[in-house]
């Protein structure tokens, strides 16, 4: 672990819905080249935390800092600062092809801000297709391990949809990638694809926040693990320490051991 300034940090983040404290007073840090695992039972607030970081939801309180400067504003603005994410419930444009969905991240990156949006409109009319884009789609597909670029996104399995989401996020060339349950419903092939992307980003000195219920995988892949329970951080530390911690025992085995066993 470096002592350098963190890549991304959050402090005092809170969000409640009516009376439900989905996230309360959560702080975290993510260093360059680090994978931060985020685990916790259903409703622990993992997705909400991802939403607060990416700007998909407005936080009630809290501050975020990305590479030394405050991270604020709407989701689009934050994406422009280098955040990318996937969704627990995949958000693919089902009417579009796999290639177009994969390229959406890169396409969006080219159209950030009003000026580029207007320029892109004109460029789109003059030159709708760049051969380089097809090549990029193929590269992204290879990275995550998906084929059949001209299929409709609606014909994909859930596992394939997750892979396309990961590829789409990769295409935006993020410095922080937030993955919300990329392994849910994925087979060995899907796990391998996502793992590859995580390793590539880690190797490039970027940061990854990995949310999943598959504790084995998260603790294997992550450098550090944060355990959330009812909106709060119950434990934070190395994967080995987390697995051995009494909090882990309590959260996962304390109340209903038979549920976890099954």
């Amino acid at each position: 672990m470096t002592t350098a300034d963190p890549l991304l940090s959050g402090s005092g983040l809170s969000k409640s819905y009516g009376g439900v404290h989905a996230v309360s007073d959560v702080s975290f840090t993510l260093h360059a080249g680090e994978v931060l695992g985020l685990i916790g039972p259903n409703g622990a607030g993992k997705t909400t935390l991802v939403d607060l970081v990416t700007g998909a939801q407005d936080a009630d309180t809290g501050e975020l800092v990305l590479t030394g400067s405050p991270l604020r504003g709407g989701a689009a603005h934050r994406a422009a600062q280098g955040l990318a994410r996937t969704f627990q419930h995949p958000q693919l444009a089902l009417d579009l092809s796999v290639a177009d969905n994969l390229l959406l991240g890169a396409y969006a990156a080219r159209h950030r801000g009003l000026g580029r949006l207007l320029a892109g409109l004109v460029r789109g009319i003059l030159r709708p297709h760049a051969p380089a884009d097809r090549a990029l789609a193929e590269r992204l597909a290879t990275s995550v391990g998906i084929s059949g670029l001209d299929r409709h996104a609606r014909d994909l399995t859930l596992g394939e949809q997750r892979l396309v989401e990961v590829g789409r996020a990769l295409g935006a060339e993020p410095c922080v990638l937030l993955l919300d349950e990329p392994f849910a419903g994925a087979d060995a092939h899907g796990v391998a694809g996502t793992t590859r992307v995580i390793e590539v980003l880690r190797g490039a000195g970027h940061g990854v926040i990995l949310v999943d219920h598959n504790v084995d995988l998260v603790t294997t892949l992550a450098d550090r693990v944060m355990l959330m329970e009812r909106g709060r951080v119950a434990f934070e530390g190395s994967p080995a320490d987390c697995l051995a911690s009494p909090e882990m025992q309590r959260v996962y085995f304390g109340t209903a051991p038979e549920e976890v066993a099954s």
Partner: protein
Amino acid sequence: MVGLRAGLRGMTNPQLWIAVVENGCFFALLGLAFYFNLTGAGFFNFGIGAIAMAAAFTGSWLVTEHGLSRPLAGVVGVLGAIAIAVVMELAVVRPVQARGEGELSALVAVGASLFTIIQLSGLFLGHEARSGQPFWSTAPFSVGSARVGSTVVPIVVITAALFTLSYLALQRTRLGRLTRAIGNDTDAARVLGLPINTARLLSFAAAGLIAALAGITFAGRSGVSPDNALHWTITGFLALVIGGTGTVWAPLLGGALLALANVFIPFYFGGDVLAYGLVVVAMLFFAFRPEGVFAPRVRV
């Protein structure tokens, strides 16, 4: 001083207040029809104005061209309106909504229905405005300097009766409570095996009935032509949205506020300002309080 005196002249003019009452009742009834569709089917039926128009227009045509008695023409108008509403649900709205494509295609579908009803009426009954032929009117009388027209008492009575009946039907009967539950959360209701289709159909029929009674009665004052349909739709929609969807009484408030605007804005500022004012009011309401004055209670 002039402004003040003119202001008083308007506000103390009983004739204007009678117009407010009459307009308010009509708008409220249209809003109530919207409310039924919204609770039963979770859906704004933009066909309401066309249904009200078709009932009134057909009734007038039957009376003036075919010598039918007004009550009989009224019955035909009301039954026809219910039939249109039911056909709309079965043939258009349900199949389109069942595909779950979201609001856009449903919106286009009701738009096309509205347009179809207008065109059908125009094609078979003519495009010219007709005088209304309400099935019930009272002898006009005077209160002080103000004249109470022949349709004021009927529309007030009908409004009071329909709102009370609607309240009782939705709150006190099993089917009514079921209907509200379905409107609240159609997906959950489907999972629970509630009779969604019956409730939807009933809500469309009730909306048709209410719209028809409103249209037929109000046409006695304003006359009616196919061109009224769209405007009546928008007015009913506004009455509901401004009043709020939280209680069955809300359209009454929305209708009253709209009627105040409809009567007094033209009086003070001229008729054109009303059109501009409505855009602004609608925009403000939709943007800042889309749930209306009486918001539905949020259950967490």
